[in-house]
């Protein structure tokens, strides 16, 4: 039942909004993973980021794709929790592990073992719109435990203008989505993070971006 609702929600609400109201300019969508287990790492500016990536995967791969999202934000009340886990299909992640000695990455690792495609935003938060922050090293821990899983870097621009943090009204802007080549565990944390970082820099430099005027 909820699976059908999820399908309808993405087909009739998410896709029209993303493809018609927003409008995408995608480069190399064929480089997105065809099947799991796989991870997509992207910069984060807006709640729309997840919707754009899930739209790019298409209705055929919808069942397999799950965004990883902060438990403290998306599970904050029962209705939100139901919508986040059942309709969007998030895998909740505890951003701050308090006291208890439990493995914060257990949910992610389990999903990868089940062959799912995960969407991760290693900046950890949407932050200031259209300002890219350094990726946190949590992804290196995941890669180390799953050395065969490809990590595909994706750079997105425009959604921080459409729906920035703290705004409830969507204003349409075209969104650029540039997809990079998949990267696998290199054997070392610093070289792995370095490769991901370099790839994101290259993707960002592909297009001159109109910046906010300094104010």
């Amino acid at each position, binding site marked *: 039942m909820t699976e059908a609702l999820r399908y309808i929600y993405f087909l009739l609400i998410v896709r029209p909004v993303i493809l018609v109201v927003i409008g995408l300019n995608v480069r190399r969508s064929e480089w997105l993973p065809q099947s799991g287990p796989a991870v997509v790492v992207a910069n984060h500016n807006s709640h729309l980021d997840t919707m754009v990536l899930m739209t790019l995967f298409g209705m055929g791969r919808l069942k397999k794709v799950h965004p990883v999202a902060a438990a403290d934000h998306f599970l904050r009340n029962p209705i939100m929790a139901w919508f986040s886990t059942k309709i969007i299909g998030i895998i909740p992640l505890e951003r701050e592990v308090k006291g208890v000695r439990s493995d914060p990455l257990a949910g992610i690792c389990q999903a990868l073992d089940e062959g799912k495609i995960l969407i991760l935003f290693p900046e950890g938060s949407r932050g200031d*719109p259209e300002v890219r922050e350094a990726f946190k090293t949590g992804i290196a821990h995941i890669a180390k435990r799953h050395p065969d899983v490809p990590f595909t870097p994706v750079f997105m621009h*425009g959604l921080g203008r459409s729906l920035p943090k703290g705004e409830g009204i969507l204003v349409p802007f075209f969104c650029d989505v540039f997809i990079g080549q998949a990267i696998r565990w290199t054997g070392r944390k610093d070289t792995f993070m370095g490769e991901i970082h370099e790839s994101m820099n290259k993707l960002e430099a592909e297009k001159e971006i109109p910046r*906010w005027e300094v*104010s």
Partner: protein
Amino acid sequence: MAPFQYLSHQIHLTFAFVAGMLVVANVILFFRKRADPNRDDNELVLRVRTWWIIVASFAVVLAVSRTTAVVFFGFVSFLAFKEFLSLIPTRRADHRVLFWAYLAIPIQYYWVGTAWFGMFIIFIPVYMFIWLPTRMVMIGETKGFLRAIGTVQWGLMTTVFSLSHAAMLLVVQPDSAARVAASWPDEAAKASGGAALLVFLVLLTQFNDVAQFCWGKTIGTRKVVPKVSPGKTVGGLIGGVATTVVLSAFIGPWLTFLDLPRSLAAGLIIGLSGFAGDISISALKRDIGVKDSGNTLPGHGGVLDRVDSLTYTAPLFFHFIYYCYG
């Protein structure tokens, strides 16, 4: 009335003629590729394919009803305005101002759909001109105010106000007390006089673009505006406008209720203003440092790249018609 039937057979023939031209383009590209398989015609092939889609969509929305055609032009305005805003830098503080600017699009096309001329002609130049800066001031960010409101208003004027004049042609009915008497090609054409004007405007504007381009390649060395558009020569401009005027003289009296002198004048207006619109959008793109305004139309670039000339020809052609026949 059933769909497809209210359009005059002259409009049907015009679309058939355009489809014929596209077939010719396809055939030429096919044989060029066969003569030299290494030739890279990908961009041109894409361009012609996109032309097929544009012409077919235009024919269908026009044939279904006046309302679908108005909605179609509203959607084109939306895409063009979105492209414009995506190209330029905007202030984060203006998020809600931009939302209001978008809201102007359905409202403007509502005036078109209901043929409310008074509101259509003042809504954006007067009401939006005053409301958008007022909303901006309420937010209170003064740094970059003039630049922000100037760019948004210019964008609305070109992509929404100007383009909506093309759709407004659909509701034009020649007045019996007008300065010039309408000369109808035949009795059956009276049911789709406005649609004929719109087809005439769009066809001549796009034809003029092509004519300017071809003449510019063949003749002339003196550049009109070398800093903006190095490909545009004086010879190309004159040759392009002359060709457009000639085509206009053939098509105008046959397709629309314009007589020969008015058709010649309309050709001249479209030829010259099409050129001006083309280079204005070129200047905008050069200022920002991009080649194309977007990627919506494969082989063409963005929607703004395709309708650049139309943003200037539509209001001027409309007001010429309104002066003569309104």
